[in-house]
């Protein structure tokens, strides 16, 4: 391996493993070049496969049981209504830039999730989409913000609203933000002295959620010949061009990675889990409700409730346990048998055609290790292996909804993202199997010739 002095990670949030197929690579010459020359393979995401915790699992090489968060929102244990948002303040683990920075490596960190509020780094940092707005302090050092705004010609944190039917406008916005990111990336690349550079494009996630039904013939709402049939492919071609430019700027001592935090696939619909729990007699309301209603703890008769759930791309089921919840009904002695019963019932759930879904209801103790497993929800539920998202609202006309409660969404998350690594001066073209998020950070450490911390859970792939 030639001498490597610098490592670059380019993140494509939500980019699915399919991108590594010949069919996709045929349209992405720069990614194809990296695949043909370097190491690549599907990258297994975290459980749950979702932006938070996935990116932080990747850059800290730790599972969520060590990190202490399982999604953007997390429940305050012992409260029905209490929740907190996993910002950078919730990240106690050291991430790549903390470790490398302390070892004298300069880092440029750009748009990586869970970096707001901004903590200082040895180098520069621009935070990501938990930043309230461009009026917030979103850079380190603070004065970088002025430069970023100028270079981007008005910096934008994220898409305003991807759940819209105005698809033309959404597409314009995604491209606009992508190009601003690219302009800033080039600026940081050229202006800053760095040993480690990491940026994340959120665009793939936004475009896939907004346009999957136009692109995937297997999607229920796909219509051949629709005007957006190539929207996702064209967007990846656009990203590939930007990748090519960055690679050409990298120099001969740089290793370059393209990675994603999880994959994506078509959404079949939304399964209204709290309505289902009511039908199962496991969740009781104070009074009947009239029509679709946002879930609220005030509506629930907790003295007659066994379990309730949060929705999203996966569901979190909480049991109402005596001694833990204010009005718990499940005794600690019957906890496991009640949970087994819940798993049994959940795995028999059917889709809107009456077919038994391939649902996975998972115990946190089987997924995670570490001091925060006790704070996890009682069950993680992937309806139909994630093809169905979970709806949280009450009083829906059916257990199955074709859209989400808050507007159109075409894609759900999938387990496998992508890993591509090109090494200077090497012609390997190796396809790797069984890679997982936590392997990325140790790989970076190894490439930079610095010791891999003993508490890393992954293994270097080089």
């Amino acid at each position, binding site marked *: 391996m030639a001498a490597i002095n610098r490592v670059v990670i380019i993140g494509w949030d939500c980019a699915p493993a399919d991108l590594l197929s010949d069919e996709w690579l045929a349209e992405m010459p720069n990614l194809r070049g990296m695949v043909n020359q370097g190491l690549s393979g599907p990258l297994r995401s975290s459980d749950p496969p979702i932006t938070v915790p996935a990116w932080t699992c990747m850059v800290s090489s730790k599972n969520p049981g060590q990190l202490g968060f399982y999604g953007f929102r997390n429940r305050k244990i012992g409260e029905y209504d209490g929740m907190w948002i996993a910002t950078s303040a919730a990240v106690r683990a050291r991430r790549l830039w903390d470790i490398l920075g302390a070892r004298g490596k300069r880092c440029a960190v750009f748009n990586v999730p869970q970096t707001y509020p901004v903590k*200082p780094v040895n180098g520069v940092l621009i935070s990501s*989409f938990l930043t309230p707005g461009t009026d917030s302090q979103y850079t380190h050092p603070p004065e970088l913000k002025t430069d970023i705004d100028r270079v981007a010609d008005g910096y934008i944190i994220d898409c305003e609203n991807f759940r819209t039917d105005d698809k033309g406008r959404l597409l314009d916005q995604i491209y606009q933000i992508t190009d601003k990111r690219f302009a800033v990336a080039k600026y940081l690349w050229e202006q800053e002295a760095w040993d480690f550079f990491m940026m994340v494009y959120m665009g793939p996630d936004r475009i896939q959620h907004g346009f999957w039904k136009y692109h995937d013939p297997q999607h229920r709402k796909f219509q051949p010949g629709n005007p957006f049939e190539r929207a996702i492919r064209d967007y990846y071609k656009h990203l590939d061009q930007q990748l090519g430019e960055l690679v050409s700027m990298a120099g001969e001592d740089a290793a370059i990675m393209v990675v994603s935090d999880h994959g994506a696939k078509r959404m079949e619909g939304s399964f209204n889990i709290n309505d289902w729990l009511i039908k199962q007699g496991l969740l009781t309301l104070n009074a009947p409700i009239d029509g679709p209603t946002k879930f609220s703890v005030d509506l629930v008769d907790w003295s007659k409730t066994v379990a309730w759930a949060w929705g999203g791309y996966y569901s979190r089921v909480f049991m109402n346990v005596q001694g833990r919840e204010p009005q718990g009904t499940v005794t600690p002695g019957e906890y496991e048998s009640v949970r087994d019963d819940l798993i049994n019932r959940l795995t028999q759930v059917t889709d809107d055609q009456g077919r038994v879904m391939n649902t996975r209801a998972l115990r946190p103790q089987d997924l995670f290790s570490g001091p925060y497993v006790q704070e996890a929800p009682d069950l993680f539920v992937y309806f139909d292996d994630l093809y169905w998202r979970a709806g949280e609202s009450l009083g829906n006309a059916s257990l199955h909804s074709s859209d*989400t409660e*808050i507007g159109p969404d075409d894609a759900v998350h999938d387990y496998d993202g992508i890993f591509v690594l090109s090494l200077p001066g090497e012609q390997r073209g190796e396809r790797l199997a069984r890679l997982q998020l936590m392997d990325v950070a140790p790989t970076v450490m190894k490439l930079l010739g610095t010791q891999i911390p003993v508490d890393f859970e992954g293994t270097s792939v080089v």
Partner: protein
Amino acid sequence: MPGQSDKVTIKIPRPLYNRIGKLIEESGYNSVTDFVVYVLRDIASVHNRAEDEVYSEEELQRVKEHLHRLGYL
């Protein structure tokens, strides 16, 4: 507009300055000033702020609304 008024001078003992100069050799910090500013920013940062204090009430609403539209809440 950046100008001289954006920066102030702080005096530190010369032996400390010299010691830091040695510490940062080959460290990636370009100067003692770079290093000192980094350390001070780290100390003065939000590092130890409680999670609840990250956002003002208004910012929290903005972030929750955004996450809601993204489908995470």
